[in-house]
């Protein structure tokens, strides 16, 4: 009897018996494709034809001048199809679903990005699709629900628990234990039972592979630091994995919410509120109480609002390979304003967390140093949330008028 999928003491596969056979199948499939260069070539060509890969690495000249320190480069996952890095993982798993001969996919979603990406993949590959989404997230990310429906997916609002991402994951597992024969669960981040953390990282590593080549082409050297936001950890692992063997400092930025001292946050790796635990099929740091019940989390960014974190990142923190910090809701809004005004780029609320920490450190660095920020997604699709955060009176009036039209 061997334990599988451990990164240091983190990870594993804490599975109900009913899913053991399904995970064995998935692991076999993943083992087969991960060393198969033909599969990777197929994946890469799909991502360059159907989506915009390689996504650009943009030199942010104005921000660099404004902050007056390190040269800032932005990896543009916002230009990936469906507007975030999520599609990388989803298309990869979609190709696996085809190989496994299944006809239905299910997924959880927080921000709605992963749900939209999964619904998109299902439409393209002709799979049936059900998306589980916490009721709170359905409300705050309504436009994404609209798109999932239009793309042909059924969206099930989850009314149990705290009604956010973790509850959607539980519900997706409950579907899977009934329907595993024909259904694959497209887990959206580098969490959950083995092989998901490794498999999601594998598909997202396309970000890091591209970024490494691009930064060398453009500057002739490796970056000094790389910043990525951390929800479950997939975009961070995606870019970090291209540089793990290099002398490059890696920084993960978590949701600081209303401030770490308020306990209204979602920081598992840089706050004292988290401890080691086992839930949702894997062992990692969770925001939980002394008796092991999960706490409520808070972030302005639905995609970062999660109690657990990738076991791979927990491990990389323990070995001090990745450093972690947190950005508050308020800092995120300020940084979004600056980025839009200086560069004409609209980061997703999630991604803006990485910008916050990068902007704190860049001015302290020298002008011949280089940093890369992973812009995991675009913010314009979150117009309702962002407009609320900006408290834009003209927008509010527009919504009021619009509502009146519907009443009429």
């Amino acid at each position: 009897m061997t334990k599988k999928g451990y990164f240091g003491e983190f990870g594993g596969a804490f599975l109900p018996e009913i899913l053991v056979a399904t995970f064995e199948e998935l692991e076999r499939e993943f083992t087969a494709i991960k060393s198969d260069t033909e599969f990777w070539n197929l994946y890469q060509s799909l991502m360059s034809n159907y989506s915009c890969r390689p996504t650009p690495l943009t030199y942010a000249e104005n921000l660099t001048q404004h902050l007056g320190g390190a040269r800032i480069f932005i990896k543009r996952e916002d230009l990936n199809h469906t507007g975030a890095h999520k599609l990388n993982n989803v298309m990869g798993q979609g190709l696996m679903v085809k190989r496994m001969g299944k006809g239905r996919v299910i997924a959880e979603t927080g921000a709605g990005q992963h749900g939209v990406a999964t619904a998109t993949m299902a439409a393209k590959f002709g799979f049936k699709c059900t998306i589980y989404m916490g009721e709170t997230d359905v409300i705050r990310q309504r436009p994404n629900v609209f798109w999932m429906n239009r793309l042909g997916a059924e969206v099930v609002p989850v009314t149990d628990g705290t009604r956010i991402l973790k509850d959607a994951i539980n519900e997706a597992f409950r579907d899977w234990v009934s329907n595993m024969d024909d259904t694959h669960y497209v887990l959206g981040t580098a969490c959950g039972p083995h092989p998901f953390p490794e498999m999601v990282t594998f598909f997202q590593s396309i970000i890091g592979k591209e970024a490494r080549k691009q930064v060398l082409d453009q500057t002739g050297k490796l970056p000094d630091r790389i910043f990525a936001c951390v929800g479950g950890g997939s975009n961070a692992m995606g870019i970090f994995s291209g540089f793990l063997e290099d002398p490059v400092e890696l920084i993960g930025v978590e949701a600081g919410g209303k401030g770490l001292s308020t306990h209204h946050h979602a920081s598992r790796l840089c706050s004292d509120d988290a401890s080691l635990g086992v839930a949702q099929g894997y062992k990692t740091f969770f925001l939980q109480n002394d008796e092991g019940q999960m706490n409520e989390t808070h972030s302005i960014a639905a995609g970062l609002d999660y109690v657990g974190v990738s076991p791979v990142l927990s491990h990389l923190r323990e070995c001090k390979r990745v450093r972690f910090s947190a950005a508050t809701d308020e800092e995120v809004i300020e940084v979004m304003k600056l980025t839009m005004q200086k560069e004409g780029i609209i980061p997703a609320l999630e991604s803006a967390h990485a910008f916050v920490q990068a902007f704190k450190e860049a001015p302290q660095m020298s002008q011949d140093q280089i940093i890369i920020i992973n812009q995991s997604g675009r913010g314009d699709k979150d117009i309702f949330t962002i407009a609320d955060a900006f408290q834009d009176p003209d927008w509010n009036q527009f919504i009021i008028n619009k509502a009146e039209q519907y009443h009429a």
Partner: protein
Amino acid sequence: MLKQYIAEKLKQKDILLMTHIVLGYPNMEASIQLIDIMVEAGVDLMELQIPFSEPIADGPIILKANQKALENNVTVKECLEKAAEMTVKHSIPFLYMSYFNILYKYGLQAFIEKMSADNIQGAIVPDLPPEEGTDYIQWMKENKRAPIFIYSPNTSNERMRVLSSHGDGFIYCVARKGVTGKKTQFSSEIDDYLKRCRNTTSLPLALGFGVKEKSDIDFLKGKADIAVVGSETIKIMNEKGFNAVADFISNLSA
């Protein structure tokens, strides 16, 4: 020991009845009262679920019961205290059912030693396969507690044997795919499945998930050793109250 108790009981009845309740639901006092009622009505063993915020293998009824218990601020500590009182008060064996994080955060060894001190005979931890449970199995055995493992219809014969080699007390056979609380068709498929289970273990077999009525239990006679009724009693309590639960259990265990 649990295994001996089951063997002794089976000399008197064709099939035993195990029920499942969630400690602290609808509140602690009522859940304790429910135990009294069930024991009085003739159940042979009971599973006491310690509530967890992420009960991934449970269906809507038990899931809501877990949530409600936690909303009532029921603590693990309190659950263990009450369970200890129950083993003094009643002579049937009690088992814990919970998810691994509850044991892990308590301190696995401390939890098992507490089980031993409180005379809780075994535990069902649905998200702890033996691969992840080496310490658990060892400490359960050292403390003479029964680690109860689960078979499912898609568990291979080979794996059933592995699970059996680590288990004690009995094997919990899940009747079908899915979560607790949905309907199960009691048909020849269950027959074949139980035969397959029987061939892989010398431990008694419990069958659960979807057992709702007397005819289900009659169907299982001679095929399984223990029938497990979970969501249905919770549903009856929710809809019709305690007296209805007493009648329901008396009828099942008759």
